[in-house]
């Protein structure tokens, strides 16, 4: 009776959400694959070209450069993100005085819009009007002062740093939740056995959080693969394409060159690459489920 009555609500309850999802996500997703197999002329007519677009991608130095930068951004970002995030979360798990206050400042940038953060940092990086170079000079490190966003050697790292600064709070909060869940008896036992705090972190806490760390790493890959807003606002892909990622290149190809098919092919490649990398990470970092 109950089951039968309940069945009647399935379709009407699911329908509104499903319509939205189908229209604005599933259809465009399917269309992306379709578009990538076609070529757009300037007039907007479409011809089926099969995998030509994909072959074109392989020989396209712009795409290869963008792909290289996307990978670089992912790797540099992971190096900039994880060690500090783990350290901060570790620090916050010690029930310090003023914990709420510290948490507020660590997480505050997350709630700000990417647009605001990017504009703010664009000015902070400004060689003369900004805050960073004058600060370096003040403490006697004037030699390190650079035109951060204007120099191809530093631009990508500078942009990556901003995106890490903006998002690190989320990683810290998730890691904190992980730390909080660790069984305190195990940690207590280690302390009684005379293990130092650093030793406890590396030999007990982090191994027990391996699953969480893997998830966070995949999350970072998903996020940095579609990096767009920070770059678009701060450098627009320049100088000399040194910060051009697949995201920004796709957008330019679609709207400056009106080549939707080619942009769609880039998108499809990006999705496939991302799924493959997520799969690899899952496999490589997979451990036996720890029982505790």
């Amino acid at each position, binding site marked *: 009776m*109950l089951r039968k*009555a*309940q069945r009647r*609500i*399935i379709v009407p*309850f*699911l329908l509104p*959400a*499903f319509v*939205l*999802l189908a*229209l*604005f*996500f599933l259809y*465009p*997703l399917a*269309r*992306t694959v379709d*578009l990538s197999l076609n070529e757009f002329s300037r007039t907007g007519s479409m011809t089926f070209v099969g995998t030509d677009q994909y072959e074109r991608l392989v020989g396209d130095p712009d795409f290869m450069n963008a792909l290289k930068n996307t990978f670089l951004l992912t790797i540099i970002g992971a190096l900039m993100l994880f060690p500090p995030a783990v350290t901060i979360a570790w*620090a916050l798990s*010690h*029930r*310090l*005085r003023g914990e709420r*206050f*510290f*948490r*507020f400042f*660590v*997480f*505050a940038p*997350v*709630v*700000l*819009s*990417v*647009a*605001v953060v990017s*504009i703010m940092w664009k000015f*902070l990086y400004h060689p003369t009007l900004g805050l960073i170079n004058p600060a370096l000079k003040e403490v006697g490190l004037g030699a390190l002062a650079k035109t951060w966003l204007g120099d191809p050697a530093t631009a990508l790292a500078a942009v990556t740093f901003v*995106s890490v600064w903006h*998002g690190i709070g989320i990683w810290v*909060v*998730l890691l904190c939740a992980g730390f909080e869940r660790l069984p305190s008896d195990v940690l207590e036992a280690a302390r009684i056995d005379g293990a130092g705090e650093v030793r406890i972190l590396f030999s007990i806490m982090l191994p027990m959080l391996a699953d*969480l760390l*893997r*998830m966070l790493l995949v999350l970072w890959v*998903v*996020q940095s693969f*579609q990096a*767009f807003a*920070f770059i*678009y606002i701060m450098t627009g892909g320049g100088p000399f394409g040194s910060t051009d990622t697949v*995201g920004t290149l*796709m957008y330019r190809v679609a709207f400056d060159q009106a080549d*939707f098919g080619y942009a*769609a092919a880039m*998108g499809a490649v*990006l999705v496939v690459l991302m799924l493959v990398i*997520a799969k690899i990470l899952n496999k490589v970092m997979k451990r036996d489920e720890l029982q505790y």
Partner: protein
Amino acid sequence: MTNSSTDVLQPAADPRPLAAEPPPIRRPRRRRTKERPAPFRTYHLFFYLLLGSIVVSTASAFAWVFNVSMKTNREFLGTSPWELAEGWRWENYANAWNGANIGAYFGNSLFVSITATVLGVVVSVVAAYPLARVQFRFNGVVLAVFLMGLMIPWMVTFAPLYNLMQGFGLLDSRIGLILVYATYNLPFNVFVLTGFMRTLPYELEEAAAIDGASPTRTFVSVILPLMGPGVASVAIISFLQNWNEFFYALLLIHTPEKMTLPLGLFQLGQAANYGTNWVTLFAGMMMTVAPVLIAFALLQKQITKGLTVGALKG
């Protein structure tokens, strides 16, 4: 929460745990003593130093923005970045609000974010109910389709989406943006809400049915009232995302009158590059940042909890 960065909020990049039943809830054992700070140890000094330097650098960045917003353009160019503003130039704020349209952007952002959040939450609560608590053949498949959105980078579909919106006549319209935002919130919402609904006892429906309530009635008067905390955290996270979203606004909105704050500020920033009106931009930034930071200060617990609820089940 923002686009590429807003996507930070897409939690379960790993699809495996989604299919599995959520594990039994493990109560964090530290909770009890949480309120009391631990006794001081020497190594805590390192932590205080580390966290203190983060606080100082973040706070000085904000303070710098505020300071510049109180300067004149001549002062901004002529004095060192450290120098305090000569006076309180609140007129910069008035200029930004009226002259630079920040007021209009603010209104648009409020309208778009609130409507999209309400639509997204309502639609996903309703959809989450049968997915979480009614057994039917394609239950798992439908749920997987919803959750696929957590895994696939949404931005790759922007070209067809643009064409679609053009076809619907929803390009450059706030309604179009609202529909996209609501959809974009769905996977996370459905993920959190189904997880939340599964924790409710199944006897609820049976008891309601015996009392003669229809399934719809049961949902509205029995299940919904119990969903308060779940709905609240989903709504807060969705709102933050929508408030900060940049990419789709850039893609879909072109007229200045319809722009949301992030996009409007971006336009203002572009204009400041070529013009000389920096202080207005900084005042605009302050006005965008301040309400969000205040709201965050008040809702800190809910926001961070909402995030963890989604990403780490239980």
